[in-house]
C-alpha cells in the first residue's frame, strides 16, 4: 500500500533541497567578489627566463622537480636552454631575477598551494 505523503513531510523535504542547492551553489554566488589573481613578474626582467612565461606559469613546479632530480641524483647541475643559455640548477638562480621568495608566496597564497621548499632552502 502506498503511503500518502503528509504536507509537513513535503515542506521538510523541500526545505532540505533548498538548503542543499544553496550550499552547492555557494561558491558560484561569490563570483566577482574573489580576490584578484596575482600576476607577479620578474623584478629585474633584463633577460628571458629559462622557459617561456606561459610555460613557467603553468609548469614551474615540474621544471624545479626536474632540476632537483638532476642536481641531487644525476650530478647534472647545469641547465641549458634551447637557445644555448646556461643556468645553474639552483633555487638561488631563480632569485637572481625574481628577487625574493615573496615572488613565489603571492601566487601560492592565492592558490592555497603549500610547497615546503623554504623550510630548508633559506638561501635568499
Amino acid at each position, binding site marked *: 500500500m502506498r503511503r500518502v505523503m503528509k504536507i509537513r513531510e513535503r515542506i521538510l523535504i523541500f526545505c532540505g533541497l533548498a538548503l542543499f542547492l544553496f550550499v552547492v551553489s555557494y561558491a558560484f554566488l561569490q563570483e566577482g567578489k574573489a580576490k584578484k589573481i596575482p600576476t607577479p613578474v620578474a623584478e629585474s626582467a633584463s633577460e628571458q627566463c629559462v622557459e617561456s612565461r606561459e610555460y613557467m606559469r603553468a609548469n614551474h613546479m615540474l621544471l624545479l622537480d626536474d632540476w*632537483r632530480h638532476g642536481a641531487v641524483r644525476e*650530478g647534472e647541475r647545469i641547465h641549458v636552454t634551447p637557445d644555448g643559455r646556461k643556468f645553474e640548477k639552483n633555487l638561488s638562480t631563480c632569485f637572481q631575477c625574481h628577487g625574493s621568495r615573496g615572488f613565489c608566496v603571492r601566487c601560492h597564497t592565492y592558490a592555497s598551494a603549500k610547497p615546503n621548499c623554504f*623550510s*630548508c632552502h633559506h638561501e635568499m
Partner: protein
Amino acid sequence: MNDNRREFIRKTGLGVLAGLGAATGIFSKSSFETAEAQTTHGASTSGKRWGMVIDTRKCREGCTKCIDACHEVHNVPDFGNAKDEIKWIWKSPYENVFPGESKQFVSEETREKSYLALCNHCDNPPCVRACPTRATFKRSWDGIVAMDYHRCIGCRFCMAACPYGSRSFNWRDPREAIEKRDQAYPTRERGVVEKCNFCSERLAQNLNPACVETCPEGALTFGDLNDPESEVRMLLEKNHTLQRKSELGTRPSVFYII
C-alpha cells in the same frame, strides 16, 4: 647418481639462485665475484671515486677545527644532549673507532688518542642496500654516498645497516639548535636521516671538503682513489693504512695512517 651429474645439478642450482638474486638486485653485484676482485683497487671503475686519507699522527689531540667547520657550513644542529645528537664528523677513542683491531699491548699514545670518524662513503655501502626508497644512493660518477632529503621517509633502516654509526636522525626540528645559520647550505627537516656528504656542494665548485681545508696540520688528504697519480693514492702507496671494519666487505673510502 654419479658425481658428474651431482656436480652439474649443484652448479645449475647455485647458478640459478645467484642469477635470480642478482637479477632482482637483492644481492650486490660483487657478492658473486671471486675474493680477489674485492681486494684490487677501484672496484667501481667508471669515473671518480672520492676518498680521504687521515694521517692520525698529525691530528692534534683536543683540536676540533675540522668538526666545527663541517658542522657550521652544513648547518648541523647542536642540541647538547646525546639523545637528539646529530653529527657528521667527530672524534672517538681508538677502541671505539677501530673495535676490531687488537687491543692487546697497544701503545699508550694510540690508546689515549682520539680518532676522527665520519661517513666512509663505502664502495659497497650497506645503507644503500637497505634504503627502501633509494633516498640514499651511491653516486655513479664519483662514488659519494649521498642523501636525497626530499625522498627520505625516516624509517632509519640505513642507521641500522651502517656498521660505523655514521648516520644521524632528525628527532626534532633541527633549526631550534643551529646557532649560526649558514645561508649557502640548506637545513634539513624533522624526520629525515642525515650524514656527511663529503662536501659535494664544495666539490661542485672545485673546492676541497671543509674539514680538509680547515685542518691546520694538513692531516686530511682528499682525492680520487681511482686516479693512480692522485695524492691520496701516493699516501696509500707509501704508508700502511687501516680502513674501519674492513672485514665487513664494505670497502670504505676513508683510510687511516696510524
